[in-house]
């Protein structure tokens, strides 16, 4: 079959708005990238196949942006599939009529990857049934449009839980597997994609294929961490575990370097079930560790606690008080620190989510906190992923950039244990030279009430990403608006090889265009 490449276009009707107007509501701030040729025939064809396309503004407007809130685009229409077969029909038709198809789960991308700038938007969220729970094998088979929260809700009724997932209630399973999925237990358990045992995938040409590490493993490795380029995940089999409330401990540091060294120590010694760094400021750093059982906590207290250089809250508070009392001109900084502490910490200990000093629903607690304190109508979260030996330097350099651009920002650092499936890590967030474990850091400015221009935010992201290019690192968010970095960081040979694979798998290049290629 000789399918011509889809035509790109930039319509003049809705050009990119200038920065001065970027917050105007109702306008498409990014150009449509497809001129709608053959749309009517495409819709008619799908209708004849029993797949309805919603074309009204009320149906489409909910998809106008993503969690980043910086890119805006409208699809020509939306399909809410009810089966893998529906997805298959959509992709087959899209190849024939050369209609770009953008898949969307929770829409939690930050660089516009799940926004359709014209073409069809495939809203995967209706595919959200849990198909089978197997407590003897400790696996679950689920449709991939399901949000992790829904999955947790279902598993909890059997006293079970998933292994690891993003700290976000509305991330979808399919979307997460496509990019990795990092949790604070990833230093022990790896990313969500590595906990996947089997997939049902609809290829860009509409074939429905079952794959696992034994069966069609090449496709499995292309789709996991594949940024949606090689197929649409419609079902997944995941490892699960017994549900346990967690015991959380916090250590406080005034030195970012010391905190990062301790984070790496925890990962290396495997002394906690969960670990991560969350900063309030770069001289108020919180290293959190958590345990699934009292035994693990006791073991930690006995063997490793004293080797960590962080302080408890009281100890850190006294030191901070001494520091700020001798520097009265830093009153505003101290006030910010206290205010943040007072607002943030009660959220992690809300009585309804606690039982006997353990956090019962960590998914909910963390996700609510993430949205409440770090969320907003606009978010930029550039990140760096580094092998162990380059991590500290990368974060320190990134921190310097943050300091120049923003008064307040947060760094979130976590380790990611690597599996031996190296193929799937190629051209992904996992740095090519990482062995056994990688570390990632997100640099998140607190944008809340300040309306920064897009140029300013883009410059900030570029400076962070330039560190990655300079040090030979990788990124979690290299798609969409940041795709200009793909060749710089991965090199032409690798990108061209993947592009050739993509062209072979997706002749008309319809699936998730402009995310990577």
């Amino acid at each position, binding site marked *: 079959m000789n399918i011509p490449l889809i035509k790109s276009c930039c319509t003049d009707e809705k050009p990119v708005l200038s920065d001065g107007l970027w917050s105007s*509501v*109702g306008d498409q701030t990014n150009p449509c990238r497809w001129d709608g040729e053959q749309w009517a025939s495409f819709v008619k064809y799908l209708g004849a196949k029993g797949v309805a396309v*919603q074309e*009204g*503004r*009320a*149906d489409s*407007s*909910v*998809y*106008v*942006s*993503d*969690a980043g*809130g910086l890119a805006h685009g409208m699809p020509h229409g939306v399909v*809410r599939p009810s089966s893998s077969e529906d997805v298959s029909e959509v992709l087959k038709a899209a190849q024939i009529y050369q209609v770009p198809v953008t898949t969307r789960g*929770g*829409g*939690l991308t930050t660089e516009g990857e799940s926004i359709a700038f014209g073409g069809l938007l495939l*809203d995967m*969220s*209706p595919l*959200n049934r849990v198909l089978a729970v197997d407590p003897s094998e400790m696996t679950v088979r689920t449709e991939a449009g399901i*949000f992790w*929260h*829904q999955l*947790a*809700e*279902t598993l*909890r*009724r*059997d006293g079970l839980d998933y292994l690891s997932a993003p700290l976000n*209630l*509305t991330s979808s399973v399919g979307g997460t597997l496509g990019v990795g999925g990092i949790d604070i237990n990833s230093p022990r358990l790896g990313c969500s994609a590595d906990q996947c045992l089997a997939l049902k995938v609809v290829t860009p040409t509409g074939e429905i294929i079952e794959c696992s590490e034994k069966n069609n493993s090449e496709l499995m490795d292309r789709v996991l961490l594949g940024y949606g380029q090689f197929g649409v995940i419609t079902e997944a089999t995941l490892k699960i575990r017994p549900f346990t409330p967690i015991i959380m401990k916090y250590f406080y540091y005034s030195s970012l370097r010391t905190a990062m060294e301790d984070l790496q120590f925890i990962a290396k010694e495997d002394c906690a079930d969960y670990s991560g760094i969350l900063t309030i400021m770069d001289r108020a750093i919180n290293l959190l560790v958590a345990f699934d059982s009292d035994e693990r906590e006791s073991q930690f207290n006995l063997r490793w606690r004293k080797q960590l250089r962080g302080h408890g809250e009281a100890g850190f508070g006294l030191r901070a008080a001494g520091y700020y009392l001798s520097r009265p001109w830093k009153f505003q900084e101290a006030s910010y620190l206290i205010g943040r502490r007072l607002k943030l910490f009660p959220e992690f200990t809300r*009585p*309804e*989510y606690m*039982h006997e000093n353990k956090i019962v*629903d960590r*998914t*909910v607690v963390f*996700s*609510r906190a993430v*949205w*409440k304190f770090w*969320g*907003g*109508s606009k*978010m930029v979260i550039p990140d760096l992923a580094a092998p162990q030996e380059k991590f500290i330097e990368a974060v320190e350099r990134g921190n310097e950039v943050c300091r120049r651009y923003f008064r307040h920002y947060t760094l979130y650092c976590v380790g990611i244990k690597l599996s031996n499936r190296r193929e799937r890590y190629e051209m992904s967030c996992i740095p090519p030279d990482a062995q056994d474990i990688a570390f990632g850091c997100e640099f998140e400015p607190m944008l809340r009430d300040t309306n920064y221009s897009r140029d300013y935010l883009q410059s900030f992201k570029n400076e962070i990403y330039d560190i990655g290019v300079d040090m030979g690192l990788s990124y979690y968010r290299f798609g969409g608006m940041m795709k200009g970095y793909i060749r710089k960081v991965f090199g032409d040979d690798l990108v061209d090889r993947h592009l050739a694979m993509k062209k072979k798998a997706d002749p008309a290049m319809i699936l998730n265009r402009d995310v990577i290629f």
Partner: protein
Amino acid sequence: MLRKKKERKGHEACSGCGVCLLSCPVWHGTRAMSLTRKARAKAVQGGASYEEIRHAIDACLLCGACEKACPEGIGLFDMNMHQRQELNRQRSVYPRWYPGGNMEPRCNGGNPKTGSLLLAGEMLGRDKDLCDAVIGLLGGPNRTAAAVDDGQEIARFMEAGLALDTERVDRFIMSLRPAGSLIVAEGLLHRPLRKWLPDKKILGPGEALLSTGPLRSCIGPEDLYMIESRGYHSDHERLVLFYDRLRRETGCQTNLDLQRTAISTGASSLQGRTDLKAAGCIDNAKRILKGRRVRRIVVEDLADAEAFRQATDIPVIHVGLLGSRDN
């Protein structure tokens, strides 16, 4: 210095996180993103008129869960009501579930002078034996009496977003003033009553009945306890702790999700009262039961009882019958 009252955020504050839809019975029932609270916020941000999103406004069951789930603290419940009011100004054709008639009470006369008044609402008010049983459990007629005017017509009009007759509302409020506390079965009335009568203690029948020990002991791990969602979400900060304690003490299961919002069947909504099936209430009841091993369902709201009876063979009883011999 007077502290400035914190302003509730509006649609513009919606970041689109989608946490609200996890608790939305309409989304769970239809999987239609366009009918969700998030979609309405995004559509309004994008300049859509209420007329353009009327299907979403009309689909809302007003359970109140989205407001409690929203991490931005947007006043979603009032916004939902407001949208209905505004939509009514623009349209001439109403959905078939809109209430007809007027707001006058079905019975006239003054309320008895007792410590507590039971505002039974439509469903409980219809079942005189159950009403008497509830009053008995609440200390008998000397301590609790059924209100002659329980405001159910006012609740209907409010839910539909229709204009309220202020004189009628004033008469209703006046009739409640002598009572020490109000036990209100119609969850939608909890919010306005707290505003109109800020000094009054407003309780749902479940909380009022289960605050005493004997009834709590009648609930066990094999029970699914259905919390009435509208009243619960109207006083969430307090009630989440009350029901969490109930769950721990009795081992019962509840319809609270992991976010501690109450999953609603939607049966007490205007749509549900008109057609349980079409409003998705029976499917919602099935979803609440999915994967649970329960032998009895205890409901605070009689409307839920009907939805569960159509969804399952598991026995359903009202909380007011917990202590009776047959249960």
